[in-house]
C-alpha cells in the first residue's frame, strides 16, 4: 500500500478487492464442483494470487467494469469473428501453397486517440486475427507485423481502430 492514500480510498480499495475475491471464489466453486481440501486450497491460493497481481497492475485504481455490454459490442464481436474466419482461411491457403507466398510487412496503426483500454482491445483484436500480430505499443502507436503485404493493406483499410473507438461512444 503506497502512502498518501486517504482512509476513504483504502476502504474503497478493500471493498473492490473483496468483491473480486468473492467473484473468483464463487466461480471456482461453481466450475470445479469438487470440494476436496487440496482443490479448495489451490482455489483459495489462485484467487488471492489473482487479486494480488490485479492490484499490482492497477486494476483497482480505475473504474471497475470499463466495458459495458451493449448491442454495439456484439456487432463488433460479430465483425471480428468474420475477420478471424476470413484471415484464418487466408493464412491456411498460404501455408498450404507450395510456394509459401509470404511478404512480411510492418505497419504502424495510430491509436493515440484511443483510451488505453481500447488500445488493449485493438491490439488483442489484431493479434487474434491470424496473419496480423501486434508487436509493440509505443506512445499510442501500435506496431503490427503482417504475414503479407495484402494483409497489412486489408488491416489499414478495415478501419478496425475506428470500430474500436466507436465502442465507447454513448
Amino acid at each position, binding site marked *: 500500500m503506497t502512502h498518501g492514500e486517504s482512509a476513504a480510498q483504502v476502504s474503497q480499495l478493500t471493498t473492490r478487492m473483496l468483491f473480486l475475491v468473492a467473484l473468483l471464489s464463487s466461480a471456482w466453486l461453481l466450475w470445479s464442483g469438487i470440494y476436496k481440501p487440496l482443490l479448495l486450497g489451490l482455489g483459495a491460493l489462485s484467487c488471492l494470487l489473482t487479486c494480488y497481481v490485479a492490484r499490482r497492475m492497477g486494476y483497482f485504481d480505475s473504474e471497475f467494469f470499463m466495458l459495458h455490454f451493449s448491442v454495439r459490442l456484439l456487432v463488433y464481436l460479430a465483425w471480428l469473428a468474420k475477420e478471424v474466419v476470413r484471415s484464418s482461411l487466408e*493464412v*491456411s491457403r498460404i*501455408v498450404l501453397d507450395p510456394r509459401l507466398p509470404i511478404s*512480411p510487412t510492418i505497419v504502424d496503426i495510430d491509436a493515440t486517440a484511443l483510451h488505453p483500454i481500447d488500445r488493449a482491445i485493438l491490439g*488483442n483484436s489484431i*493479434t*487474434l486475427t491470424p*496473419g496480423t*500480430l501486434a508487436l509493440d505499443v509505443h506512445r499510442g502507436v501500435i506496431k503490427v507485423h503482417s504475414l503479407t*503485404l495484402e494483409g497489412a493493406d486489408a488491416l489499414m483499410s478495415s478501419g478496425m481502430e475506428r470500430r474500436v473507438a466507436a465502442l465507447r461512444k454513448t
Partner: protein
Amino acid sequence: MAVLTDVASWLLLSLGGVFVFIGGLGALRMPSLYTRMHAASVTDTLGAVLIIAGAILQAGFSLAAIKLALILLFLLLTSPTASNALASAALLAGVRPDRALPWRAERSE
C-alpha cells in the same frame, strides 16, 4: 436427431483438426519466429473454435457445455495476450522482424 447431431459434431471436430494440422504445418514451414506465430494462431482461433463447438454438440444441454463455452471464451481472451507477450519479448531480445527473414519486407512503412 441424435445422428444429425453426431454428424454435425464430427464434421466440426474433423474440420477443427484440419486447421490445427495446418497451424502446425505452417509453424514448421514458415521461415522466422514472427511468421511462425502467424501460422500457429490459426490453431488457437479457428481450430479451437471448431473443436470446442464440436465438443459442445456432443455434450448437449449440460453444465459441461457451459464449461466448454467458457473455456473457449478464456482461450480467445488469453491467446492474443500470450502472443503479444511472446512477440514483445522477442522484440526486446533483439529478434528483428525484417532481419530474421530470408528477404526484406518490400515495404516497411
